[in-house]
């Protein structure tokens, strides 16, 4: 039923878009387009899975991902490339090089930003800080306080990207470390309430910085069936304000399609996550129109459809 409704919405949208493109010869400056590419939980999978008969053999790896990203960048004007954490740990590359080739490859691919996952603590905070010397992109986190740790001043709570006429605010959330990350690895890091910190940041980005869109890179996890009250992207989206998109990670969830959730203000929040190990690259093509409402804090809806080739 939901799919059917989405299909109808999508058909209506496509038909509308076709008519629009037929009738307006020139680029319509009141419509802006943004392509978001995203990964999560790549876990040091720099090379494809080995050809050993396993389910994922021959899949993943930076060489193929980079090629695809280059092709999309060549075809699209405004692209953001984002990662939702757990860059580290999972192949011997990490055990040997402590994350250097992972961060270097992401810089080569032109990642715009990432957040930090629990496994990015695995080599210790000193190591993560050291490896970030190879990063040409910021680590976004608004709910970890790294005061008096090696990571102090190495992350920023948000970054605003100017894409054409659009202002896109991006922030990030890390998961609670206690019980997940060994105590000695996170040291003095203080975990702050993700819902509260996100809402503060998102409200500031929308109201004070006039961002047209707010994206949260979240390593909280999509949902926890055995612990349904544990904060997850589904709960976060519901409790959020002024967030348009959550790019998730941690639970290695392969979503068939992005999930829409109504937030506290009745507006749509989109959640997406693309499994793990760089097996997939997620793509979301957003269209924007001029904001005409006098009071922009009213409920906002978005139509979601599957991109035809």
């Amino acid at each position, binding site marked *: 039923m939901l799919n059917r409704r989405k299909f109808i919405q999508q058909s209506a949208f496509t038909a509308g878009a076709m008519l629009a493109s037929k009738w307006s010869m020139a680029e319509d400056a009141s419509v802006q387009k943004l392509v978001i590419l995203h990964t999560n939980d790549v876990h040091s999978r720099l090379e494809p899975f080995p050809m050993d008969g396993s389910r994922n053999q021959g899949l993943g790896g*930076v060489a193929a991902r980079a090629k695809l990203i280059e092709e999309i960048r060549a075809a699209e004007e405004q692209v953001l490339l984002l990662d939702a954490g757990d860059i580290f740990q999972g192949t*011997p590359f990490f055990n040997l090089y402590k994350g250097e080739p992972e961060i270097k490859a992401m810089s080569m691919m032109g990642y715009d930003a990432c957040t930090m996952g629990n496994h990015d603590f695995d080599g210790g905070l000193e190591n993560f800080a050291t490896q970030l010397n190879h990063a040409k992109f910021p680590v976004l986190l608004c709910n970890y306080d790294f005061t008096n740790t090696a990571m102090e001043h190495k992350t920023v709570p948000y970054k605003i990207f100017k894409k054409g006429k659009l202002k896109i605010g991006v922030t990030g959330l890390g998961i609670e470390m206690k019980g997940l990350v060994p105590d000695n690895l996170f040291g003095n890091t203080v975990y702050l309430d993700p819902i509260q910190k996100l809402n503060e940041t998102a409200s500031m980005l929308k109201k004070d910085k006039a961002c*047209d869109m707010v994206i949260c890179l979240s390593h909280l996890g999509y949902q926890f069936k055995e612990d349904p009250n544990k904060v997850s992207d589904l709960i976060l989206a519901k409790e959020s304000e002024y967030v348009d998109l959550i790019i998730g990670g941690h639970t290695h969830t392969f979503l068939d399609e992005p999930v829409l959730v109504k937030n506290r203000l009745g507006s749509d929040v989109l959640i997406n996550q693309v499994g793990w190990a760089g097996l997939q690259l*997620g*793509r979301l*093509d*957003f269209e924007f129109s001029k904001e005409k409402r006098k009071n922009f804090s009213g409920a906002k809806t978005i*139509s979601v459809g599957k*991109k035809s080739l």
Partner: protein
Amino acid sequence: MWLQKRVTFKGYITVMNKTILKLFFSTGILFIVSCKPAFKSTSVQYKDYKIDNATVDTSYTSFLRPYADSVNRSMNMVIATLAADLEKKQPEGTLGNLMADAMKAMAEKYYNTKVDAAFVNYGGIRLPVVKAGVITKGKIFELMPFDNIVVLQKMNGKLLKEFLDHVASRGGWPVSGITMEIKNKKAENVLINGKPLDLSTTYTIANSDYVANGGDMSNMLRAVPQINNGYLFRDALIEYFASFTKAGKQITITIENRVTNAQ
């Protein structure tokens, strides 16, 4: 002449108006930009690309080569030699015995304390057999791909018995420092360091953090505080296996009736 003058006048007014309007609009737009978004997202189209390596950017392959060469060299590093095939088996197997011994020995070394018993959850052993001959670092990564950490927990005999009953109900897990029989899915005739289990004695137990955190249904361990220095179980295996080589020995391990099914 009159007409021309009028046009000029009118033009002047128009220019004036435009300037005023421009001023008005620019201020207005500035005002709008500074306090509310100019655009809103109205639609989104999604697509997931499978990264199938049909086409690649070879500059990345070149970038990775020196790292990959080293990784392969490292993974091909011979850690030890096995005298005989090791098997994953329940209630007891040679592969599990070796891994549990590694857990106990390395926990004692890295926490500098006596450990009464060590466990490995059966499902955490990721190879059914390790063949006799050389064992490489890569093989140990296959055996234990998870980044489980060796942790210590102190518990009284009563709670330990509860955990042992759980181990028994799962068909028997690899143990070191302990012997027991499985009877009606319970642990019976438990001996620790050769002495019968005492319900009020405090024992020091080594486990993976996965099990200590309640993994594989070990819920009874969840509330027990952990001592955790981040030492990976895989590193413990590598070091323990290498200690045989250092001593000029091959690895030999047998079935010692650590865990048996009661007749």
